[in-house]
């Protein structure tokens, strides 16, 4: 436990020292968000006034999309870091210590969760200031839902990192797997409108469950209504964690 906390704190500090680390993951999305909303602000309210219809016209569309994109880019960055660590022999060196792979996983996930939380919180604050409609939402519940979603998706990223042989493969594979999942997640077009077969495949995916959870919570729905989503996300987390511990490659 001490090792986990120390490693988490260490990875946070190291990440902040990266030239693109803190700036790229925290400041950039914020700047982009403010810039975009400043430009688009006069037109946004009319389009989003439609409320909870799902898709582009849903009031939750922008916040959920922003959240998902942050989570996915965090995921890709996690995959990259783990494969860089492996190629650099850092993991191999750690293997010769009593450290467990699950501790390394947990430390990176915790560090990434923290940065996701900071980024999204800043976005929410910026949104309150710059984004006139849809600013009334259950902040604490939304952040909690986001943490659950992030945790689940990061475990998927870690599984990809455990399986991918090199950084050159890991990064594009992660991007190719994760971004389309966001595309199909029901964020842009509600899953209910999909052909049955595709809906069947897409429904259990953590992206889909995450979008459903985040959108619902944004609209003030209760947790009871989303037990299934949380369950599916938790299941993904357990499954991916177990698999990545089994398949974890130190070198």
């Amino acid at each position, binding site marked *: 436990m*001490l*090792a986990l906390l*120390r*490693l988490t704190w*260490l*990875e946070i*500090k*190291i990440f902040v*020292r*990266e030239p693109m680390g803190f700036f790229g993951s925290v400041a950039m999305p914020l700047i982009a968000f403010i810039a975009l909303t400043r430009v688009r602000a006069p037109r946004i309210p009319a389009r989003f006034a439609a409320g909870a219809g799902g898709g582009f016209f849903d009031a939750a569309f922008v916040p959920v999309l922003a959240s998902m994109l942050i989570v996915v880019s965090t995921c890709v960055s996690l995959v990259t870091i783990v494969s860089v*660590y492996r190629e*650099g*022999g*850092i993991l*191999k*060196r750690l*293997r*010769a*210590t*009593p*450290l467990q792979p699950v501790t390394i996983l947990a430390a990176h996930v915790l560090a990434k969760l923290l940065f996701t939380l900071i980024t999204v919180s800043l976005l929410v604050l910026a949104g309150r200031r710059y984004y006139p409609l849809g600013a009334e939402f259950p902040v604490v519940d939304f952040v909690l839902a986001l943490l659950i979603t992030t945790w689940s998706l990061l475990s998927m990223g870690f599984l990809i990192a455990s399986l991918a042989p090199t950084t050159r493969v890991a990064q594009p594979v992660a991007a190719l797997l994760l971004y389309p999942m966001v595309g199909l997640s029901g964020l842009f077009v509600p899953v209910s409108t999909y052909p049955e077969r595709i809906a069947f495949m897409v429904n259990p995916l953590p992206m889909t469950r995450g979008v459903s959870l985040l959108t619902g919570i944004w609209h003030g729905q209760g947790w009871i209504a989303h037990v299934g989503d949380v369950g599916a996300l938790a299941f993904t987390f357990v499954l991916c964690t177990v698999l990545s511990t089994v398949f974890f490659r130190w070198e």
Partner: protein
Amino acid sequence: MPPVIQVSSIRKQYGRTIAVDDVSFDVEQGEIFGLIGPNGAGKTTTMECVEGLRRPDRGTIRVLALDPARQARRLQTRIGVQLQQAQLQKRIKVKEAVAFWASLYPDSVDGDRLLERLGLADKRDAWFMTLSGGQKQRLFIALALINDPEVVFLDELTTGLDPQARRAIWELVRGIRDRGKTVLLTTHLMEEAERLCDRIAIIEHGRVLDMGTPSEIVQRHCAEQTVILVVEHEDAEAMLRSFPCVESVQRDGSRYTLSGRHADFVTRVIQGLAAHRMHVEEFRTVAPTLEDVFLRLTGHSIRD
């Protein structure tokens, strides 16, 4: 007392390549034992089997009476490991690495004092990426020693370092042994093997060619000693040839190279020179080295 490390008949195969083939050796408490051989000879694979990072296909290994493959967790707290070409996070600070490594073990030594001993005290706040090659290696030694291990593994410790840094590291390794620890190291540097190791095993193509103290091995395979001298004397060549134990004489102007295998070869040559009242302008002995042994055993130089 049983040997600290016992390796018997281990074999490790990757696909069709046999990396380690029937390797056996024992390492006693408090000695520096070197696995010597060219790159790709199987030294690192052997060492990683002993460390518990790899499982041999055949054979048995005991380290501190534990099986590294099955009892890795119990062993890890009692050994210290430095891996070939290891890296740390680029922007980790020296003191952070030491503190983190210390937190991984139930018991650890004082990190600050360790850094001081390894000459890294003034680099405590430096990022890993800013350290020189020698400093990085010293940091890896520090990490290998942080849990006060009984056995220390050092893989190609001084590769890529300049001679000065190399000598400093040798001193550190001797210091580790002098505190009663057992050291298993690999190197492809014959000078390092000769100067640092109490005993060595020469490995090529995954097999042990010979084992013993460096001087035993040199004696066994290259008993021939050489004296090079400069003498201005008309009949020098004939006189030198008449010395007992001189087996061959080569002449290059007034420079003569004598060689022989007798244990007292050099003394006999000096006695002969004195007896003939020869005026010697230059005198130098060339003792065979492990480099010569390697050449003789394998038919090629270690750097080929």
